[in-house]
């Protein structure tokens, strides 16, 4: 069994994030999304020294607030052949840890309504459905652009 390690995303390997996301996620992100991958919390997950998963998250400071109230997971992806090995879970745990060290008590993310298995996966980790946001992915040309906002209290 190969080991799972997390490591930083750097200027030199940030293209890998794009490769993983485009391979796994139904959504397409603009270039600026990847340019910003060095800000916030982002990590690669290595399986036997090969990068196979990645998380990109950031702190959310709502309007009229001075301090962040939640950690928002912008993208989380693990290459298909490397699933069911606890890699995704490890990445979420990393986000939780980051939330705690930033004194933030909530993690949020969006799941596409047409991917119930993804929703279930997050539910197994303790996330709960907050609301359905109609048309959230309307710019992504998905056949059903609604998203479910999920949240986890920590």
């Amino acid at each position, binding site marked *: 069994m190969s080991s799972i390690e997390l490591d930083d995303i750097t200027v030199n390997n940030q293209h*890998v994030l794009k490769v*993983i996301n485009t391979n796994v996620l139904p959504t397409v992100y603009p270039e600026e999304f990847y340019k910003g991958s060095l800000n916030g919390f982002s990590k690669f997950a290595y399986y*036997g020294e*090969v990068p196979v998963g990645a998380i990109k998250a950031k702190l959310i400071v709502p309007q009229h607030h001075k301090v962040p109230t939640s950690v928002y997971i912008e993208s989380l992806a693990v290459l298909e052949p490397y699933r069911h090995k606890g890699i995704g879970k490890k990445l979420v745990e990393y986000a939780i840890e980051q939330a705690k060290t930033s004194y933030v008590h909530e993690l949020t993310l969006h799941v596409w309504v047409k991917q119930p298995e993804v929703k279930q996966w997050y539910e197994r980790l303790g996330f709960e459905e907050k609301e359905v946001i109609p048309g959230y992915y309307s710019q992504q040309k998905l056949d059903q652009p609604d998203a479910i906002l999920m949240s986890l209290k920590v």
Partner: protein
Amino acid sequence: MSRRGVPLATNKEDANFREALKLYEAKQHRKSLKLCEQVLKKNSHYGEALALKALLLYNLKEDDCEVYVEKALAVSTTSPVLNHILGILKRQQLQYREAAKYFKAALDNGSSNKQIWKDLSVMETQSRDFGSLAHSRLKYLDEFLGYRANWTSLAIAYHLNGNLEAAVKTLNKFEELAEGKLGPNEMYEHSELLMYKNEIISEFDLERALNELESTETFDKTGQLELKAKYLMKLGRKQEAQRVYRELLKRNPDNVSYYHQLEDALGTRERSAKVRDSLYSKLQAFYPRSDAPKFIPLTFTTGDLFKERVSKYVLDQLKRGVPATFTNVKPLYKDLEKAHVIGAIVEEFYTKSSELSPLCWVWTTYFLAQHYLQLNQLEKSLELISKAVEHTPTLVELYILKARVYKHFGDLQTAASVMNEGRLLDLQDRFINSKSVKYYLRADNIDKALEVVSLFTKNEKGENGLKDLHMMQVCWFIVENAESYKRLYFANLKDEELSKKYAGLALKRYYGIVKIFEEYWNDQVDFHTFCMRKGTARAYCDMIRWEDLIFQSPVCCRAVLSAFGLYKHLISNSKTDGDEDDAMSPVRHDKKAKKEKAARAKALQAEKQHLVAYADDEDILGETLIGGLDLFESKFFSHDHGDLETLSLNEVQFELQFAKNKMAPVLVALSKLVKISHDTYPPLAAHILQLKYATANKDKITQMLASKGVEKYYTEWDQPWALIDKYCVRSTLDGIKGLLAVYDLKLAQLDNDKVREEILEATKLLQPIEQLEILKFL
């Protein structure tokens, strides 16, 4: 000092001249020149001042240096100071033989400056005049006995000149003198020199060398054991030798040559595979972490035993996910049967590999893709590697292989862009960076290649890395860059101006390679004194031998041969269209043409800035390198190569001398080509036919010499095809290139259409990329 016998510094000129010398030594060249000119104003026949002026002009990069050399020599050829100065000048001009001549003259005419012996020795070593070297070193030693370096220098001089016993005596003498007086700082030098002495002794008395070796106190324990084993083997004492090799293996069980040498000592190489296999089984048990005892049995076992061994070897690595598994077994693919056995084993394993781990599956797929590429099954290989990339798109190695497969398909553009995709995954990986640069160059996308390679070079403001690449002597880049310019030259023959630009640039880069090797050669100079001081005599002698063959290094040969091909084409091209040009295109004088010309010149000027390879270069585009075979010879082929021992250099020599109607060196080159290739070099067919039939435009004597000389190699002239078949094996790229050379001769004695057909027929069986290489010439 004064040659007129006048007491020192009695007249103003002498005093001024001496002052000028001092200023030169203090590197105040301008001031020194001023004084020099003052002296010459008073006395225009002051030889030493004329020589010094020549030297100063050279240092100040001004003209007329040679004029003053002449003037100085016209005044006197015997003045020691004058000769000394000219020696220094010639040394700076890298004319080592000349420099030695002047230093020698200075000493012969009674110079009291003993340091000149040392300068002379360096120049003699550099020009490989070992006969005189020992004398000079001895003279210098006589003056300064107290330095070990001088004793070492003399010993090395004797050794290089083949006077082994004198070398040993010299080394012994110093050891006696120094006995008990050496401090701890000198012990490394001492140890090196003891080993050096021992190696010299072994060249004439093995027994004595072996006996003395035992008692030699040295830091180089490994070297000592290696020598001991070598001597024992040469003396036929194999039993003792094998014990030493086992000891060496204990020190380093990863050194493959120890295993082979151990087998030589044991005499097992001639024994059955079973016996040898059991030897390696034991060695494996001793050194379980070493690859060599596991791999070597795969080279000699066959049948079921091979299958068993190779299966364990390959599958162990695949299960662990070793990326280089295929590279490790690739040497076995020379034996096609073994290749198929390996393929079958891995195919069987492949079906269950995904159960083990996704990484195991990916590396196994990667292995099989390489396997089928090696067996020339490109479609299959591409299918596998594409699946692997889809499965794990974050693995750089997979992109490298995928690009390689596209390259073999002849799709160089796709190959380059796939390689670049891989590069993007890890921008700090220098290997993939270089790979993608090379692939861009192969696809003739020079701008992109430069952009990518410049990520890793030191770039001055606003510049690309081209200068740094030349400074850092990055031969692979420069030679590939040259090749792409050469291809662009051929692709743009219709546009005279453009093709000429590419030809110049190609030659500029090829010459860049030759220049690098000239630098290597010139860099030796410092070592002729440095190594003596450090006492690293063994490494020094290795370096001398290495430098002797330096212009025959593969990349240098490649550049010379390829540049020669370009010169040949440039010459034949200028012959055919030269006169029609004048008649056909009347010079246009209208405004529009002028404007166009100005615009093009401006664009070229801007482009030039990106093509600068050297600081202060006046010939960025290599225009001065375009010319005839004389120019080629003086730039690319004028080095002291010694005997030509490579196919490419002899190939050049053959054609060059053939063009110059010098049959004696042509025949020497021909016999070398036969000898080096064991009579299998495909272009020999064309060469032999050329000497027999293609000498019509040469004089009678040359014709006769050629056809006489060639009889040694072939006589059945009624069957020219038998000759062609002998050398040009149709199933190989080189064989077909040999046919192409025959085709190019366009001989009346041969049905050239048939040659063409043969080429086309044989080419069909080649890989797509190789096909392209042939077809562009038809």
